[in-house]
């Protein structure tokens, strides 16, 4: 079980900032690489600027190939595709493979027919042109993995949310703390952001105000400070 994981559709919106697979559309190298297809001009050359997305280009984690997810396969797929005069996208090919057939194929499926751009205008008229983008498949933060490294898990639900943050959002804040021999918190830092600064700081505040009844380890009779990792899982 993965608390707070985004495999579930109901978490889709809330998890977007941290867990969604970020798509780096119109990456820098997209402009520098000329199209493989001589039949259509390069969109950047034609429009003299990067084409602008006309719909959401994020790929949600529900589309992460299941087996790749389980095998821990991640990587970047560079796609070469045509933007049609109406802004729709088709003729998608892999310009540079991630090394995984599943990730390459899923990237093509996610883009082909789904992405749209504002029409690229050249000489006052919309034109068809070719463009490149990278789909970056990243395995999202998996609390179970963190738990293996000794991180504890704290669940936060709607009543725990700070004012001003919609309890429909969610994410995971990972915090590493140093606890003194008397149980007080000496130091804490966010090592993984939920993507929502208000949630991260609310997590820090909540933890700082706690006493940590930890029995310190001893070395030659001297009590030692403890380092504790915590995952604060924000889920409505």
């Amino acid at each position, binding site marked *: *079980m*993965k*608390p707070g*994981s985004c*495999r*579930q559709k*109901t978490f889709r919106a809330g998890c977007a900032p941290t867990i969604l697979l970020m798509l780096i559309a119109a990456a820098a190298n997209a402009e520098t690489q000329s199209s493989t297809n001589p039949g259509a001009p390069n969109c950047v050359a034609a429009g003299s600027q990067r084409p602008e997305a006309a719909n959401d280009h994020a790929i949600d984690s529900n589309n992460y*190939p*299941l*087996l*790749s*997810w*389980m*095998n821990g396969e991640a990587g970047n797929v560079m796609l070469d595709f045509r933007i049609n005069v109406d802004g729709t996208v088709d003729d998608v090919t*892999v310009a540079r*493979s*991630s*090394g*995984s*057939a*599943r990730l*390459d*194929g899923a990237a*093509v*499926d996610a883009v082909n027919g789904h992405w749209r751009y504002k029409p690229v205008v050249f000489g006052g008229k919309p034109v068809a042109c070719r463009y490149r983008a990278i789909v970056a498949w990243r395995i999202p933060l998996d609390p179970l993995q963190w738990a293996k490294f000794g991180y504890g898990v704290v669940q936060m639900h709607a009543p725990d949310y700070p004012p001003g943050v919609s309890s429909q959002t969610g994410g995971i804040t990972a915090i590493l703390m140093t606890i003194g021999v008397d149980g007080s918190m000496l130091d804490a830092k966010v090592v993984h952001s939920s993507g929502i600064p208000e949630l991260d700081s609310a997590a820090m505040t909540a933890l700082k105000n706690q006493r940590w009844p930890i029995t310190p380890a001893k070395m030659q009779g001297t009590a030692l400070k403890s380092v504790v990792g915590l995952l604060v899982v924000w889920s409505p």
Partner: protein
Amino acid sequence: MRGAGFAIVLLISAALPPQVACANPPISLAGIPYGSFEIVRGRDDIDVNPDGSFAEASEIAIRVLDSRGQKAFQQVTLGYSDGLESLGVASAYTLKRDGQKIPVAHDQMLRGFGATSRPGFEDLKTVTIIFPQLEIGDQIVLTTLRRQIVPLFSDAFATREEFSRAIRADDVQITLTSPQSGLPLNIEATGMEGGEPQQFAGKNRWVWRFQNEQPIDYAVDSVVAGNDQPQIVASSFSGYEAMGKASGEHFAGKADVTPDIQSLADQLTVGISDRRQQAKAMYDWVAAHISYVDVVLGVGGFTPHAAAEVLARRYGDCKDHVMLLQALLSAKGIASKPALIAANGPYVASKIPTPFDFNHLITYVPEFQLFLDSTAHYAPFGVLPFFDADRPVVIVPSGEVLHTPNIAAEGRSVRTVVTVKFDGEGTAEGESHSSLSGDAAFAMREFLDIIPPAQEKDVFRVALGAAADASIDRGNLDSLVDPYSYSVHYRVPNAVMFPGPGAVGSGLALGDFANGLLLGPLPSSRLTTFACPSQTIDEVDEYDFPPSVRVTSVPKSEDITAEGVQFHAHYEIRNPHTVSAARTLRTDHPHAWCTPEYYARVRPELARIAASLRGQILYK
């Protein structure tokens, strides 16, 4: 009026078929009532390695729609063959209607042995997952990873992913990847979207989608004649010949004749010179003495135990039965061959061969052109049970595709003689003597075998009413004499009301027997092929009323014939208080299944037969 049918012929369709393997992980949906659940989401990623082994990640979200679905899914058991594959549960939870996820705790995931595991079959393992707080409207969500370590057939891969048009499915996607060179796959997909072959990163990739927003309402007796459900078949076997050869490698050397086997064969055939009778003696012995452990072919692997080992242990699965029978027959110079079959499966062979379509193994004796299933304990020599009949088989190792014979009307016959006597208070005292042949005898023996004597009376109370008292003489259950005879004696207080006027139903024995076979619910039309066995049923009844009662009317005598159906009913008032009835139903069909078009042609006559069977005897 309760208990109108005074003749007792128990339904034989209740006989248990062998367990059937389901090719679609992670959850077997076989046997779960349609309409009690729906598939909200399904993901299946299969990645084939160059040696034919594979990894399969599956996610399934199932919403339970009623109490039957709730019962079926609150506890789910997955099986796997330890040593050959691994099965991990990546995540399992109940998804409540309000979106809350309730994870399955570790102590609610139980690892165990297969239900049928015994020494020698201990590779079959199970994981049972208990979904917490599952209520109607909630979903179970299960994600698993199955990794095959050793391919069941070296350098070969095959799978069939099948979907039912009777099950609602919102969003299902299957992805298959395989090496671009070295392991070519034959692929056939029907009723699926997508499936164009693509190439990425040195692999072939196919993606199929399936959606079924308006499930078909299948009649209860729908059967799959061919492979006509939405499905994907992928196989590296170039044809049945290759598949037969690969299967043969598992059987090599397993049916060797050892001195023990030779001496048993000699002993069983002492004084028998006719070769067919010799074969019968050996078949009878195996059927009677080797208890059947129903490890499904495919799940427990394809490799049988050696015949000598099976003989020493006195139990085995279907493969083991076949090896021992083959060794015994061969000790007497009678050649036989293993034959792969899909028990209870489709009646037509798939174009693309996959060994996993076959869940059972039987014996073929070319000399007599005879198929034998010695695991069917109650099937006499020469009788092939209904679940093996009229089905394609693949002979090992030649790969020849043959077809088992359909059961003819003579091969499934039931004859019943009933006498019922009513006393002045309306109590019925009856005797029913039945004599069954062929497959009907097999099925009835199996059915009676699973009713413990202590529960007999309850079974009859269900049939005849709570006040009924009945006893059964099971006759000779074990000797496999054909026909098989049994009789029932019963007493039903307040079965009828005297004095009249009143009515007694007639002929429901025949009606019960035909129920679900041909004359059941009689839907106005059918969408699918349906089970329509050939059979002969006849029944002679005598109803004896007390002298104070006068019979005023009996149903009309009739002869009704239709394509493949003959029905005859004759009623007679013999004296003012005795009625005799004789009815015969005979069906003859080329196959064990009939088409919706056939049904449309004969439905008017079937309706007339059903009406005749509902006829009543009136008295005053």
